[in-house]
């Protein structure tokens, strides 16, 4: 009977270690798409972010353009091009911040259509998340690999 109880504890311990090993980082962004009708003034949109995982996350926010290439595939474009600097037209209230587990946070994005942009304007505001605590790697070990998997969620701003 005692051995059985010890066995249960061992199983629970192993189970918890396995759970910890596969700890997941989760981020929720709302809304996922914003339809914008541009006027003279910049459009202000409030986005809600929630950390749904069990660990604190470092959030980095930035903007990229979205355009079709010659093949017709959608590709992200660098925010700084020859014609305009997208960072001047899209401003994000918080570009780098910590979001603790179960914490919610608002981010306000101001969007103005670039002057030199022809056609319907589209851009993506990305929220990239990194685990706050760095996992240590045993550098003395032979051929050991630390794998970090980062999530990146994009909110599309589309011109109506």
């Amino acid at each position: 009977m005692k051995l059985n109880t010890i066995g249960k504890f061992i199983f629970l311990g192993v189970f918890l270690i396995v759970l910890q090993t596969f700890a997941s980082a989760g981020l929720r962004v709302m809304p996922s798409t914003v339809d914008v009708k541009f006027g003279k003034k910049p459009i202000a949109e409030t986005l809600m972010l929630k950390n749904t995982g069990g660990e604190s996350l470092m959030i980095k926010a930035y903007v990229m353009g979205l355009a079709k290439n010659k093949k017709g595939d959608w590709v992200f474009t660098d925010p700084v091009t020859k014609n305009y600097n997208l960072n001047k037209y899209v401003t994000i209230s918080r570009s780098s911040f910590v979001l603790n587990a179960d914490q919610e946070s608002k981010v306000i994005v101001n969007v103005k259509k670039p002057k030199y942009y022809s056609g319907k304007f589209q851009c993506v505001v990305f929220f990239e998340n990194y685990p706050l605590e760095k996992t240590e790697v045993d550098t003395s070990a032979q051929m050991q690999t630390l794998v970090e998997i980062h999530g990146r969620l994009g909110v599309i701003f589309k011109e109506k």
Partner: protein
Amino acid sequence: MKKTLILLVALFFVFAISTSTLADTSSSGNQAVDTNLVPALEMTAPSATTLDTLQVDGDNEFLLGNLVVSSNAPYTIKYHVDKTHMTKYAGTDYTTATALINVMSLIGGDVGDFATVATTDQNLKTNCTVENGATWSISGHQVVDYADKVLTDGAYHLVITYTAVQN
């Protein structure tokens, strides 16, 4: 007096009908804003894991974890892997490592949909219909054709970034 009474009764009926209509509207949810209906994207990814199966002359496949992308409505998700580099943890042995490892993403459990991802692959994968709570297994494959490269023992660091945006 009678006319006033009739007018009052009529006003009461109008008031009663209008309030009941409003009550019906609010109970059916036509006017209330349900935040659950606002489109949202959620991504849950394994943040870090340590592999010790890497071999100098190996040809291994290894599971890195599950990526879960969900939304509160059926969505088509675009995704790509924008960073797949492997650097020696305390050094700068970058090119050797990128020649060694390819990371693959398994879509919807179909082995035929394995997509090898290179460091320079910036294109979005399109037409990947993903339903709420779709789970993708992320696996790596160790490539053996690195004859001109020499991989030294040590600790290496691999970073993968996944992107999800609404179609």
